[in-house]
């Protein structure tokens, strides 16, 4: 499985009137594809803050003090707001706790679902236009340098082809959408006719009116040749009769007949619009007899022969030229990175050397970026910001270390600074970049420029069609209704037009989930999605999230304070207390073999159906995080606490490969302690139950 998200040494504090609250203190975890990670802890343990840091929606007074959140090769802690817009909501989505307050009460559900799709549509259009312009400009410059003749002429041909092609494509797609919506309406009308509801049928017909006029496209449903217009005219005649008499034998038949060509139209292959555009410009359109596949073949042959083959070769030359230049530079970079690492070998790096070397390297890397590459090299792109911040922290640490009387802010920094770590961060950033460049250089010889050039043409065509791809209201509506059906809302067509107050709590939470899924994210963060709901609805929502996870291979971060809820959901569980992860492991390990006293306490404070004895409540309240305790934060409320718990923070002890816990009880010298009786009893009971049922299933 591939790692989707890595959180490394995350530290976040909040500036308040009373002092700095240390909300998250150095936590690390990984999230893999299609995996659910549950973060469990009391309120104030920093679980929501972690989630908000990943989403980039921390409050204004938050101070991200350190750590990395790596997603898709980017560090989410360091990228700017502009770049975050592309990730937040699109790639990483979030479901909030309160379904009441996360929906706008005066806007219809449908609008709230489609709003983001439509807004993003426009932004995507602009973005695609920008990328297309940029890439063609760079490409033509490289091609000129590589000695290709008549570059401008060729590009003007290509531009005209993409322009006309994307126009043709969007026309076709517009009609296709109408056909899709028409099919839905005809099906609905058919059901209403069978249900004998003339009023609804009349409504369906009104809905169909604008669709019916716009379904025609030469390559989809030919207005002159197809039987559709005749059928629609027939239908128009039959409907008033049906509505007045209520006899549906004829209407029924016409509707069924109409469905056939519509559905057939949806199954035909779309023509190759770029080839078609070229043929049109050169007046070389082959004869069309209604067979799109045959047409495509002829058009593509002409397009390739007259233009594309030679053009692709030229592009390949351009790409090769650009690549060669950048690889020459990359070789130099590896050398200078090695030099820089050499220069920074000694124990205390001289800050001047560090600054100089990092500046030099980042400048070189910036110059060497291959701007033509379709897939951006994330290490190269983030090198500058990473290394700069590492050097900056190191410089500050050195400065503060020398101070005799540091101010309040610096004093706090001094208390927890770790100069060795800061030095290593600088070195680590450089070695990582060096290794990545070296591996790129090694792989350079195997590059296939023909393939790359075809990829480039496809990419440019794709951007060109995105440029004119409008997410229309209708398109968004169709998608929204599909989503609503996916999350289990019946009667989605009617409910699409309702207001949030017309939905029950569970239904509202489903809407929130649908909105979160609208952009097809990779990662879904659920922040206590069921706390406000009651048991039956909670079970439904959990089942829904589980189902969606399997269907879409989502990675989920599930935040809750209730361990019972996550038994069914989680693959991995991290128990958080006072801003630290105190125990993490797979669900089985946490439930059947808990090791940390806090996990015991959480487990023993909730009754299950067989609990009779007095509950082991956790005494007291979580510590004040303005002055976090010196030792184990849980020591004060922990009846198993030892002297060392008050003095020193326990490290993470390894129990199995995936199971870690931070408690001194796991130290070899610690006295042996049994978990509370309520927990051991329950585990024994669960094991017995599992054996029994295992036996039964074997029979």
């Amino acid at each position, binding site marked *: 499985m591939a790692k989707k998200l890595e959180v490394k040494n995350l530290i976040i504090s909040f500036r308040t009137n009373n002092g700095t609250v240390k909300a998250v203190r150095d936590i690390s975890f990984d999230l893999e594809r299609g995996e659910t990670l549950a973060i469990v802890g009391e309120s104030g343990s920093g679980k929501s803050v972690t989630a908000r840091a990943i989403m980039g929606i921390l409050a204004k007074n938050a101070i991200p003090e350190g750590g990395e959140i790596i997603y898709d090769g980017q560090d989410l802690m360091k990228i700017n707001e502009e770049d975050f817009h592309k990730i937040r909501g699109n790639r990483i989505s979030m479901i909030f706790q309160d379904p009441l307050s996360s929906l706008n009460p005066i806007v219809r559900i449908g609008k709230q679902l489609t709003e983001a799709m439509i807004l993003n549509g426009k932004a995507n259009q602009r973005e695609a236009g920008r990328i297309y312009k940029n890439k063609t400009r760079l490409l033509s410059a490289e091609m000129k340098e590589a000695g290709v003749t008549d570059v401008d002429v060729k590009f003007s041909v290509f531009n005209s082809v993409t322009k006309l092609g994307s126009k043709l494509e969007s026309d076709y797609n517009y009609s296709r959408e109408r056909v899709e919506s028409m099919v839905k309406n005809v099906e609905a009308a058919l059901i209403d006719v069978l249900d004998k509801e003339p009023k609804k049928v009349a409504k369906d017909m009104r809905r169909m009116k604008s669709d019916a006029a716009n379904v025609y496209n030469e390559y989809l449903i030919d207005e002159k040749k197809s039987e559709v217009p005749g059928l629609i005219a027939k239908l128009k005649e039959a409907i008033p009769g049906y509505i007045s008499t209520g006899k549906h034998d004829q209407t029924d038949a016409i509707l069924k007949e109409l469905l056939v060509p519509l559905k057939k139209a949806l199954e035909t292959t779309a023509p190759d619009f770029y080839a078609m555009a070229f043929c049109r410009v050169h007046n070389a359109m082959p004869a069309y007899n209604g067979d799109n596949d045959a047409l495509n073949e002829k058009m593509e042959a002409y397009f390739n022969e007259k233009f594309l083959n030679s053009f692709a070769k030229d592009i390949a030359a351009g790409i090769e030229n650009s690549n060669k230049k950048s690889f020459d530079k990359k070789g130099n970079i590896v050398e200078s990175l090695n030099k820089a690492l050499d220069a920074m070998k000694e124990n205390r790096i001289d800050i001047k050397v560090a600054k100089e070397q990092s500046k030099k390297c980042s400048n070189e890397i910036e110059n060497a970026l291959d701007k033509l590459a379709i897939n951006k090299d994330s290490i190269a792109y983030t090198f500058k910001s990473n290394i700069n911040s590492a050097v900056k922290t190191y410089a500050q640490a050195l400065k503060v270390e020398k101070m005799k009387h540091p101010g309040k802010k610096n004093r706090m920094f001094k208390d927890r600074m770790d100069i060795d770590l800061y030095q290593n961060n600088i070195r680590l950033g450089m070695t990582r970049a060096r290794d990545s460049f070296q591996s790129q250089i090694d792989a350079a010889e195997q590059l296939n420029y023909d393939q790359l050039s075809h990829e480039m043409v496809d990419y440019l065509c794709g951007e060109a069609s995105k440029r004119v791809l409008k997410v229309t209201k209708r398109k968004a509506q169709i998608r929204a209704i599909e989503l609503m059906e996916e999350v289990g809302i019946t009667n989605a067509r009617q409910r699409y037009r309702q207001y949030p107050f017309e939905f029950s709590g569970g239904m509202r939470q489903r809407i929130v989930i649908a909105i979160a899924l609208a952009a097809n994210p990779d990662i879904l963060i659920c922040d206590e999605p069921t706390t406000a709901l*009651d048991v039956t609805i909670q079970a439904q929502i959990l089942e829904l999230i589980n189902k969606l996870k399997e269907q879409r291979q989502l990675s989920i971060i599930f935040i809750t304070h209730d361990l019972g809820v996550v038994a069914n959901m989680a693959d991995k569980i991290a128990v958080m207390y006072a801003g630290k992860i105190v125990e993490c492991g797979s669900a089985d390990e946490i439930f059947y073999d808990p090791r940390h006293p806090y996990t015991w306490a959480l487990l023993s*404070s909730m*009754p299950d159906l067989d609990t009779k004895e007095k*509950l082991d*409540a956790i005494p007291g309240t979580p510590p004040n995080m303005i002055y976090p305790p010196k030792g184990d934060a849980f020591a004060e409320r922990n009846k198993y606490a030892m002297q060392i718990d008050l003095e020193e923070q326990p490290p993470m002890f390894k129990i199995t490969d995936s199971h870690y816990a931070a408690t001194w009880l796991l130290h070899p010298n610690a006295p042996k302690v049994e978990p509370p009786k309520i927990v051991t009893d329950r585990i024994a009971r*669960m094991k017995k139950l599992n054996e029994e049922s295992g036996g039964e299933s074997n029979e």
Partner: protein
Amino acid sequence: MSEKMTGREQKDNKLDTMLRVDNYTPNFDPEKEPILRVEHLKQYFKRTKAVDDVSFDIWKGEVFGLVGESGCGKTTTGRSIIGLYEITDGDVFFRGKRIGMGVDALKRWKKQFAEAKAAGDTKKMEELKTDKVVHKDLMTKIQMIFQDPVGSLDPRMTVREIIAEGLKIRGIRDKKFIEDRVAGVLEKVGLVPEHAERYPHEFSGGQRQRIGIARAIVLQPDLIIADEPISALDVSIQAQVINLMNDLRDEMGLTIMFIAHDLSVVKYFSDRIGVMYYGKMVELADSDELFAHPLHPYTKSLLSAIPLPDPNYEKRRKRITYVPSLSHDYSEEGPTFKEILPKHYVLCNTAEYEKYLKEVEELDANARRKQR
């Protein structure tokens, strides 16, 4: 009383005199009569039948749990009993005395009275007259704990003012006495007397709920209606509050009506459980009995939705969905509340009654086989 009485006892004694309700317990025997009796309670809001013909008894010293999903009328039942709404129909008796009478019940009473008057039956008229009296003064012996620990405390009152408000309304003016009482209940709920000077926002959620409990017990009630007192709290704090309520129950001899939707907590805390669905009580039994023989399909679906901290069990767990139109056929005969086993009532018609009896036998047979 003898002279050896301690200070605390004297104070309590004083409180008893001050809080005494006239005619409080004449001829009331908690062994034979329930402390709270609800008969055919109906609470309609315009067309919404929030509570529709619910009857149950609560006996002294027990914890009566009321479960159901949100919107099923369990909170409304609690609020109707304590008189926060005007009851549509039905009667509520506390310690054998009427404390609530429905609007429709009053109409019926008037009709009966007119008939008796026309017949000249003076004895019946007297009877009817005494039956009609609603003892609002008994209400102080029933107190309520609310769900939302933030919303139920006035942010502009100190904790002392919040707790002492009930005493002041009862007409107690002795400042020293009030101070002692407030300090006493604060200690009882696990806070310190110094907290009395503070405002609610200075407390955490669990502490706020403790203040709510202190406010409820300061008038020395017999019955406490706890309306989802723990669902807004963290799991670790939930256990603290449950333990506190358990301790108070033993210490003060409280009877508690516990409204919640979390079945595992209700099972742990209650002696008897009533299951509500859309304004109707569908099943009522001792808590062990209910979990041993869940009969009504809604109860089964509720039980199947409880999440447990056991991954293997959770993977096998199959949720049962309750669709009333599929589960019941009430076209021929409507359902009534029938006693299937001793003290185990289910809402069913005759055909279902037979079916449930068979189910009980099957469940028992299964249990026996498992034990073997």
